[in-house]
């Protein structure tokens, strides 16, 4: 199928993009990589009257270290993250996660900001940004505001982004030398949406983990952190008994939602499987 007719504009400045967005209201849609939007348009599941192409906006580009933060522009593609030395050094969780996103052709076009702004509960980046305590940098008609990832993802496909705002970049605290990372997802085939996935970050000394951040995705309406399991793990020597306790807590605290092929029970089970694998990986 082909998309319905729409107008197309490609502003050169962020301020122009913002005013176009404000004028267009709900009939305007931002387009960057287009890996979700174009499929939706071609299927005529959405018929906006104007597309605002933001790929010329310089403020949204590039990966850089600013102070003690890694700044990733919203237009940075999944491939750029996968291949970036800065990301490998300062946010290794993202490098580990990138190959799980669909396939290379999609990663060449799809963007970091697009994935975060859609807030698909099965997507990798929202979960990673939660575990990494990322901060979203947002521009709107009244200027810039910043919001933490944990307040950004509100509900299914719903973020705190207002219709007249643009996600510009994300700031991530630089990885510390004693931080450990684990990323894994269970999918039927490589490139499919995960049945369940885990993005984990912790600080490790000997066999003790602290500052645990275990975010599960594709199990609920948003990525969800296993806070009860984290509390059990923080500061305690990691052993079989503690792992079993944390696994039971994670399965209990997360209210998994079924999808078309997997029951809530199956997802709850996989939450435990992923947590156990990550902890055994950290201990090894």
């Amino acid at each position, binding site marked *: 199928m082909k998309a319905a007719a729409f107008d197309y504009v490609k502003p050169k400045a962020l301020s122009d993009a913002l005013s176009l967005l404000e004028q267009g209201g709900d009939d305007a849609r931002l387009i960057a990589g287009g890996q*979700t939007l174009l499929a939706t348009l071609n299927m005529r599941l959405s018929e906006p009257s104007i597309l605002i192409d933001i790929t010329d906006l310089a403020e949204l580009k590039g990966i850089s270290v600013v102070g003690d933060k890694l700044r990733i522009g919203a237009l940075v593609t999944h491939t750029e993250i996968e291949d970036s030395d800065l990301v490998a050094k300062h946010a290794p969780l993202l490098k580990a996660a990138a190959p799980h996103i669909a396939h290379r052709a999609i990663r060449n076009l799809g963007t970091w900001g697009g994935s975060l702004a859609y807030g698909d509960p099965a997507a990798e980046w929202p979960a990673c940004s939660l575990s990494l305590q990322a901060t979203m940098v947002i521009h709107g008609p009244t200027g810039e505001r910043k919001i933490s990832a944990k307040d950004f993802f509100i509900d*299914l496909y*719903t973020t705190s982004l207002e219709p007249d705002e643009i996600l510009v970049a994300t700031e991530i605290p630089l990885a510390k030398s004693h931080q450990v990372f684990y990323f894994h997802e269970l999918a039927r085939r490589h490139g499919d949406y995960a049945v369940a996935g885990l993005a984990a970050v912790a600080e490790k000394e000997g066999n003790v983990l602290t500052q645990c951040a275990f975010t599960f995705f594709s199990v609920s309406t948003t990525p969800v952190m296993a806070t009860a399991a984290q509390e059990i793990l923080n500061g305690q020597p990691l052993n079989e008994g503690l792992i079993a306790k944390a696994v039971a807590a994670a399965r209990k605290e997360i209210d998994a939602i079924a999808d078309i092929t997997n029951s809530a029970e199956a997802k709850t089970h996989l939450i435990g499987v992923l947590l156990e694998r990550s902890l055994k990986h950290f201990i090894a």
Partner: protein
Amino acid sequence: MELNGEQLIAAPIPEVWKGLNDIDVLAKSIPGCEEISRISPEEIHAKVMFKIGPVRARFSGKLLLSDIVPDQSCSMAFEGSGGAAGFAKGRSRVELKAAEGGTLIAYTTEASIGGKLGQIGGRLISASAKKIADDFFQKFAKELGGEAVALESGAGDE
């Protein structure tokens, strides 16, 4: 798809019943409701714009009420067409019970969604339906001047 849940609304049963049967209240409570009209006591027609993530689908549909026991329960059958996006149809049963702090609304729904929305959106259709139901009860409770408390809601694919 199945969608079942219970909601506590801080209002007495007669008020909740009246609200559920008042198309002005429904018009303000149904997320994305653009038009609603009562054709007969048992038949309601509506146009609704569903906005979930990247999808915008305008559905026009009808609702047929049956087994109406005032202040207690009713059944409804619904079907809607979203043009190129697909269609939805199903049945729902709603029961009201007095509870501490207001009225307990218990609902069970069975629905099937077909067409492109079913194929493409299938992965998250249950979660979407749950979100729409939760939004509806939040707005509905607000219309009646209170807050909705979701006691239990679960969506499943069968």
